[in-house]
């Protein structure tokens, strides 16, 4: 299939879904057996309403639906009215996701490296890690909110919690499977223990770390949203909960779409960086 055909199919499917979503429910009274109850705009809203809601939530238009002017301060006045408007919420969620991701991958990597290279540490800590890993992380979120409050810290900790194990296990595997001949080669070429760690063990373990980064960034986003659901003053998760309380399906959908976009952008960036850093891999493996 040519790229154009594929693209045409994709556009057609997207349009079809949008049409059903927008007008499907109006057939409900006549054809109740065909149109599921779930299409009720009360639950899922509809594309036009979502678009409207987006314009309002992002302060691009005013209450009457007229475009806000940047120059005369209408936009900033609108922004100031809500401490959790769409822009601020997105920024906060993004910031906490990146922070949780950074802290989670760093600590997961360091732990994985330390335990992966030390049989003694592994023997001591193994039961604790197995036990901790078997707790569904979500169950801890309320405790974290209680301990770290409604601000950013609790979201970062939640994200850290879901990311750290993922990265830890990958790094641990990687650190165990460092090629022994690479280590021998380095030693015979005059490397000290520390130089072996820095120039052989870390770079070859990095390949395993990178493999976990794409899932890790998605996990971090999930962690932050979860934290915001349970207790937050700001963030996209908070927006969703507020919209739900008001029964505003469109408001929830706007937030969901923003999350989708944020998720796609983050995953793309991470994959790009990963492919660049792993360019020494045989092509097929790096492009997975």
């Amino acid at each position, binding site marked *: 299939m040519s790229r154009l055909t594929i693209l045409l199919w994709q556009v057609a499917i997207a349009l079809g879904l949008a049409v059903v979503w927008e007008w499907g429910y109006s057939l409900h009274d006549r054809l109740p057996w065909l149109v599921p109850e779930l299409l009720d705009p009360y639950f899922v809203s509809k594309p036009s309403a979502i678009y409207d809601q987006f314009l309002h939530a992002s302060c691009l238009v005013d209450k009457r639906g007229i475009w806000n002017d940047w120059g005369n301060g209408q936009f900033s006045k609108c922004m100031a009215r809500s401490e959790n408007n769409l822009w601020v919420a997105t920024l906060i969620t993004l910031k906490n996701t990146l922070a949780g991701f950074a802290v989670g991958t760093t600590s997961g990597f360091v732990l994985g490296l330390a335990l992966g290279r030390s049989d003694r540490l592994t023997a001591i800590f193994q039961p604790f890690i197995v036990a901790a890993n078997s707790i569904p992380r979500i169950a801890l979120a309320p405790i974290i909110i209680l301990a770290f409050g409604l601000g950013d810290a609790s979201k970062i900790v939640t994200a850290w919690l879901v990311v750290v194990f993922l990265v830890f296990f990958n790094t641990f595997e990687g650190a165990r499977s460092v*090629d022994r*001949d*690479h280590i*021998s*080669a*380095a*030693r*015979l*070429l*005059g*490397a*000290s223990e520390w*130089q072996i760690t820095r*120039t*052989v063990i870390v*770079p*070859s373990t*990095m*390949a395993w770390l990178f493999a976990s980064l794409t899932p890790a960034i998605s996990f971090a986003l999930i962690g932050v949203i979860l934290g915001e659901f349970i207790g937050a003053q700001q963030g996209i998760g908070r927006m969703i909960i507020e919209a739900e309380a008001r029964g505003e399906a469109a408001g929830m959908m706007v937030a969901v779409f923003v999350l989708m976009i944020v998720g796609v952008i983050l995953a793309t960036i991470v994959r790009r960086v990963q492919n660049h850093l792993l*360019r*020494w*891999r*045989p092509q097929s493996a790096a492009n997975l």
Partner: protein
Amino acid sequence: MTIRIETRDLGKTFAVDGRDMRAVDGVSLAIREGEFVALLGPSGCGKSTILNMIATLLPNSSGEILVDGQPIDRRRPSRNVGYVFQRDTLFPWRTVQANIGYALELAGVAADERRERTQTALAQAGLQGFGHYYPTSLSGGMRQRAALMRTLIVQPQILLMDEPFGALDTHTKLEMHRVLLNIWEREKQTVLFVTHDLGEALTLSDRIILLSARPGRIKEEFTVDFPRPRDAVTLRETPAYAALFSRIWHSLGEEFVKGAQA
């Protein structure tokens, strides 16, 4: 002449499935300065084991190993000894030139000098223009040349080589012999070269030490006195080569049969 590598009654026992397995037994050899010695024997006879013990990669079970008259120290491998692996052990995450310059980097050689010496080494190995490539995008022969230069760049006076060209096709192998002989004619390192390829041993070495099938013991020694400098291809067409080949071949063949039965 000075002896640079010496083993006395060297032995190695591995524990396999709780039972002791004698891999190397009573190997005493002495290699003089500037001598190129081939360690020849069937697969599994303990060639790598002997080499690895000399290189401090493996502890010996019995006997002694002396390098330059000193017992080797497993914690501090001598800077005078270079090792080339049977397997490809280039670091895949480093470019070819970063691999070759690795030992210089460890020694803290300044970037300028490092670049210069790396370029010289690349040229010597016929790898000009490939410095920025990653090992995975090179052919097996190119990778092995790069691995050779990675070891040679710090100019070790003693070289331990474990079937470095074992994985290459015949043509590439002869090409590598030429490269290695060129370097060796100039630098006259003391070389212990492990192989199970009789032709390779005859082409390169001054002396062949023939090992028996497992447990590896020294079975026989042969002096290879073909004139130098040698040409890897034309040497094979001389009658002297053919004569020595068939003499050793017979002795080696017996060990291959034993090895297959063991």
